[in-house]
Each structure stands twice: as structure tokens, then as C-alpha cells.
């Protein structure tokens, strides 16, 4: 069969080609690591697949785990697609979760007021935390990557300080650094009464739709994307890139704050120190955004796959000698291989195209629309 013809026929699959290739390569690396432990990769991957999607219970557990990943993924996509590469999702999520948990217990007034005020305050906290790094970028030209990273660590310790010294739940097991449980009436209801999955997943799906609409069907989304492609063109065309910068970063902080809110209202019913960090929700969310090329619907699917790798990893750690961390090895490899996507497209071209030189990358440079952004 003519290769070119085949290539033409399969053209519509090209956006999927790269993620599938990357996942395949990552699974090969994972297999090598598994072989090193003396287990059979096929058997382990089988257990993993079953532990992630194999039964109603496992599938719903995976979806529960995917919920914060989807939401933080959306948060990351909104700022990364405009070329503002913040990695502060974790800190913003902590702020959202912490503020929500505290407000829902300690605010005065009826329960409905606690809930509404708690959610609003939490989203504002996430947004404000992101605003801080936006302000540092604007006023002091501080690298967004560094400021958001530092704020992640600082946020975790500051929240821990307040939980430990002010809002500590002394009723239960004293060893856990956690706040008091919120009232049952304002907890997010479960979708199926006997399963973990809560309506936070529904909210996440709604957020996907809303983000898609925002990015693809509104003026703001257009301007934000244009600012990502070419900031000079944007400024020349009368779009204030400064305004865009503030808007996308605040919005992304609010969304990451929402992830914390959902975790508090739907899963833990309180803020527990270190839960978001140890599960690395925000980092996996960022990975989901990168793998799917900032496409909200892609993020939904990718997050479920990545969450499946995590729950599957937990399943193999329970039943075999292979440690849980196999999942972060595979997840790390997927994004690593995704990052190399540009070269594959270059290789496909008929003529050898000279690779662009990434000169002057300390500032911002125009990113390739498809091929991930450059720093």
C-alpha cells in the first residue's frame, strides 16, 4: 500500500498521534523498570488496568481522583496557553482548600451562608495567591516559574501553621494536622450513594465546558490565545497584554482554588495538611494540560488516564512487590516524550527544515502554536 496515501487517510488522527506515541514510549520505560524488579510487565500492566478501570468501584475511584486533576489542569491550561508558565497550581489549590475548610466551620451564620461565603472566599484566596505572582512579574519582572514555586512551598507551610496552631481538630486522632470536619449538610453529595464519586466530578465537567467556551468562543479567549502566540502583534493590535496577563493568571488561580474547594467539600470534608502535595494533583494536572495541548476536552480525557495510572499504581502496590511510584515514573515519561513533539513534526516534512534557534529565551519568545511553548 502506498505509504503517502495511508498517511493522508490517517491525517485526522495526527493530533492524537503524539500523545499515543508518548504514552506508548512511557509504558516501555515503565516495563523496563518493572523487569528490573523481577516482575512481568504484562502482568503488572494487567493489574494496573484492572485496578484503574476494571470494576465499577475502581472506575469511580479513578474518576474521583481525576476530579482535582481536571480542574488544576484547566487552571494550568488557561495561563500556559497564553504563554504565562506558572507552576503555582499547588499553592493556589492549598489556599482554596484551606480557606474553604476554615470558613465553612468558623464563619458565623446559617449553614448556607457558611457554604457560599466559604466558596467565594476560597476562590478569592486562590485568585489572590496567583495575583501575587502576576504582580511580581509585572512590577519586578520576576520569573513566574520561580515566584510560583516559592509560593507553593510557602503556602503549604503557612496553611500548616494556621491549622496546627489555630484551627486544629483536637477531637480525633491527634497525630493528623487537620481542621474540624464541615457540617454534613454542606458536603457535596455523592453521585451513587455507596461509592466515593461525588458531584465535584460534575462540576469539573462543567468547568471543562466553560473553559472550552471561554477559550474558543469569546473575545477574551481569542485575545488570550493571540497574546500567547505573539505578544508584540497583540500589543500592536491594541490588546493590552498586561491586562491579559493579570486576567489569565487570576482566573487560573481561581480555578486551582476551586480544585481545593472540591477536595474539601467532596472528599476530605476538611483541610488535611500535605494531602494535595503528596498526591501531586496540581503537577499531574499540569501534565494533563501539556499532554493535551491545552485543549479542555483533551484535559478531561488525559486527566482520567493519568488518574487511572495513579489508582492502578496503588493497586499493584497492594498486590505485588512493585512500588506505587511506578505511576509517577510513567507519568513523568509521558510528558517528557510529549515535550519532544516538535522534532517529530519536523522529521515528517519533505524538505529538511532548519530548526529555529531559540535565542534570547530568558525573556519570552513566541511559541510554536502546536509544539508546546518555549521558555
Amino acid at each position, binding site marked *: 500500500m502506498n505509504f503517502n496515501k495511508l498517511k493522508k487517510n490517517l491525517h485526522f488522527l495526527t493530533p492524537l498521534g503524539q500523545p499515543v506515541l508518548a504514552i506508548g514510549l512511557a509504558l516501555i520505560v515503565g516495563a523496563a*523498570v518493572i523487569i*528490573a*524488579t523481577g516482575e512481568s510487565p504484562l502482568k503488572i500492566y494487567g493489574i494496573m488496568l484492572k485496578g484503574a478501570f476494571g470494576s465499577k468501584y475502581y472506575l469511580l475511584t479513578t474518576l474521583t481522583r481525576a476530579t482535582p486533576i481536571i480542574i488544576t489542569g484547566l487552571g494550568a491550561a488557561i495561563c500556559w496557553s497564553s504563554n504565562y*508558565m506558572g*507552576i503555582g497550581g499547588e499553592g493556589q489549590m492549598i489556599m482554596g482548600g484551606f480557606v474553604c475548610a476554615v470558613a465553612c466551620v468558623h464563619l458565623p451564620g446559617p449553614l448556607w451562608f457558611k457554604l457560599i461565603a466559604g466558596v467565594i472566599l476560597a476562590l478569592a484566596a486562590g485568585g489572590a495567591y496567583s495575583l501575587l505572582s502576576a504582580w*511580581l512579574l509585572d*512590577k*519586578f*519582572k*520576576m*520569573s513566574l*516559574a*520561580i*515566584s510560583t*514555586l*516559592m*509560593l507553593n*512551598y*510557602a503556602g503549604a*507551610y*503557612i496553611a*500548616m*501553621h494556621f491549622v*496546627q*496552631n489555630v484551627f486544629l481538630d483536637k477531637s480525633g486522632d491527634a497525630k493528623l494536622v487537620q481542621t474540624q470536619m464541615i457540617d454534613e449538610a454542606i458536603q457535596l453529595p455523592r453521585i451513587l450513594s455507596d461509592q466515593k464519586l461525588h458531584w465535584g466530578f460534575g462540576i469539573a465537567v462543567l468547568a471543562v465546558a466553560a473553559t472550552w467556551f471561554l477559550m474558543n468562543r469569546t473575545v477574551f479567549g481569542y485575545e488570550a490565545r493571540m497574546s500567547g502566540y505573539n505578544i508584540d502583534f497583540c500589543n500592536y493590535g491594541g490588546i493590552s497584554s498586561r491586562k491579559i496577563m493579570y486576567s489569565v493568571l487570576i482566573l487560573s488561580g481561581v480555578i486551582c482554588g476551586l480544585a481545593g474547594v472540591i477536595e474539601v467539600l467532596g472528599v476530605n470534608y476538611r483541610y488535611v495538611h500535605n494531602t494535595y502535595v503528596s498526591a*501531586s494533583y496540581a*503537577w499531574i494536572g*499540569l*501534565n494533563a494540560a*501539556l499532554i493535551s495541548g491545552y485543549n479542555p476536552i483533551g484535559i478531561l480525557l488525559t486527566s482520567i488516564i493519568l488518574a487511572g495510572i495513579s489508582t492502578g499504581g496503588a493497586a499493584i502496590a497492594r498486590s505485588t*512487590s512493585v*512500588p506505587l*511510584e*511506578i505511576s*509517577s*515514573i510513567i*507519568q*513523568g*515519561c*509521558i*510528558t*517528557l516524550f*510529549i*515535550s*519532544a513533539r*516538535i*522534532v517529530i513534526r519536523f522529521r515528517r516534512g519533505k524538505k529538511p527544515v532548519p*530548526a*529555529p*534557534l*531559540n*535565542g*534570547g*529565551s*530568558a525573556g519570552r519568545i513566541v*511559541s510554536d502554536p502546536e509544539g*508546546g*511553548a*518555549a*521558555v
Partner: protein
Amino acid sequence: MMSDANYLSVVFNSTIRMMTPILYVALGSALCNRVFIFNIGLEGTMLTGAFAAIVANYYTGSILVSLLAAMISAMLVSWVAGIFMVKFKGAMLVVGVSINMLMAGLTTFLMQTIFGVKGAYVSTDLVSLPKVDVSFLGRWPVLQTMFSSLTYLDLFAFVLAILLYFFLFKTVTGFHMRSVGINKTAATSLGINADRLQIGTIAFSGIGACLLTMGGVTMFAQNITAGRGFIAMAAATLGAAHPLGVVVGSGFFGFAQSMANMLQNSAISSQLTMALPYLATILALAIYNFTQHRR
């Protein structure tokens, strides 16, 4: 209660011990900055070096082999990161984030398979780095405290910074490196192999990692670097990627961390003092950038 001079000398001593692991990595990061590589994967690189050192230590009990293992493994990881950044034109942040996640997973994974423990592997059977003997300073107790229980690697960090300064500013290769950073296209047209320089830029982060695992208590813990790789990046930025400036930058973070440790025994909340180095980073960078833009 300690006397003031004694207290200061303890702070000085702990600052040195806190800053040198950062300094090694920051020097590597500074060289990356010189060739316009923003390597956020240094955190993962450092973690790898720390782990390789402990594994080599466990099997051979030799300091030299452990050091070599740490350096080689760190170089290997940086090389992979470099290939993805430079040859495959991967976005640097993406590659860095992936490397960090991959290495955090891999080191914990291997710790569990090799040592059969979860969380942390601590053993007194492992050899630790030899300490500099300061008993000849016995006549001056303050000086003795200032330089007590430092390893030779701690002192070498400062020597290395000076050596790198001469390398960058007084040798042809150093000139080439700087020229790649200033204008890669022009440097490439002169036949300077920019890619190879970029890939071969980091090896010191491994030594810094050794200090973490073998400097005091010989141990490896899950995520033992705890953001030091990121702090080192900030220190390199703060030092304007100049080797001697990086010493000052790292010293600042070492001081903030040692203050966080010292204040843990006081009435101030230990969680807040733990947040101090990270907030200090932001503050210092803000002040630094502010003065730069004023000029």
C-alpha cells in the same frame, strides 16, 4: 543562654552547612543560565545524585565511588534533560517538570526495591564524608565553633566558585560559553558547538547532593532535596549567574534556612520559620530586580 559571640558563630556554622549543597547546584544552574537554559529539572537531578551516592555507599563503602556515582548520575540525568531541551527542542519548563516527576518516582521506587524500606533509609553502616579537623583552633573557641564539623566538600564549594569564575571569564571555553548565552546564532556561525556546551554544563549538582546524604546523618529519604534544587535556581538568578554572585546568593538562602532551624526552638511557630526561606527568596529577587531596573 549562649553568649552573643557564641550564638553568632553557631549561626555562621549552620549557614555554611546549609548553603554549600545549594551552592554546588546553583553554580550548575548559573552555567545553565549563561547558555540560556532554564533548567528547572535540577531538583530531580539533585535527587538522583543524592540517591546514587547512597546506593554506591551501600555497596562499596567508598567515599570516592559515592562521589563519582553522584556526579555521573547527575550528569546522566542532565544529559537526558539537555537532549530533550536542545536536540528535540522541548520546552524547557516541560522537560524540567517531567524530569522532576520522573526522578522523584524513580528514586523512591528504587529505594523501595533496593533497600526494602518506605519513606527513608537511614543506616549508620554507611560512611559519611570526612570532617575537617579544626582542633588546632582550640585556642579560639569561637573560630572553632564557626568551622566545626564541616566537610572538605563544604570548603571545596567556595574553591569551585572561584575556579568557575576564572573559567568563565579568563579562558577561551568560558568565553565561548558566555558568547552562546549572549547570541547563540552568532556563536553557532563561528563554529562553537552550542548544543554540546549546553548539554555538558551541569555536573556539580551531584556533589551538592552528596552533601545532603552524606554530610551529617547518612541517609536517603523520599524527596530529601525538599525544593533545594529550586532554591538553587533562585540563588543563581539572584547572583546574576556570576560565580561569585552565586556564592552571595546561596549564602543568603543558607542563612535563611539556618535561621529557620535556629528559630524552631524559640516561641515563633516552626511552620512559619520553615516558610521563611521561600518568602525570603521572593523578597530578595524583588529587591534585586527592582534595583536592576532602576539602573
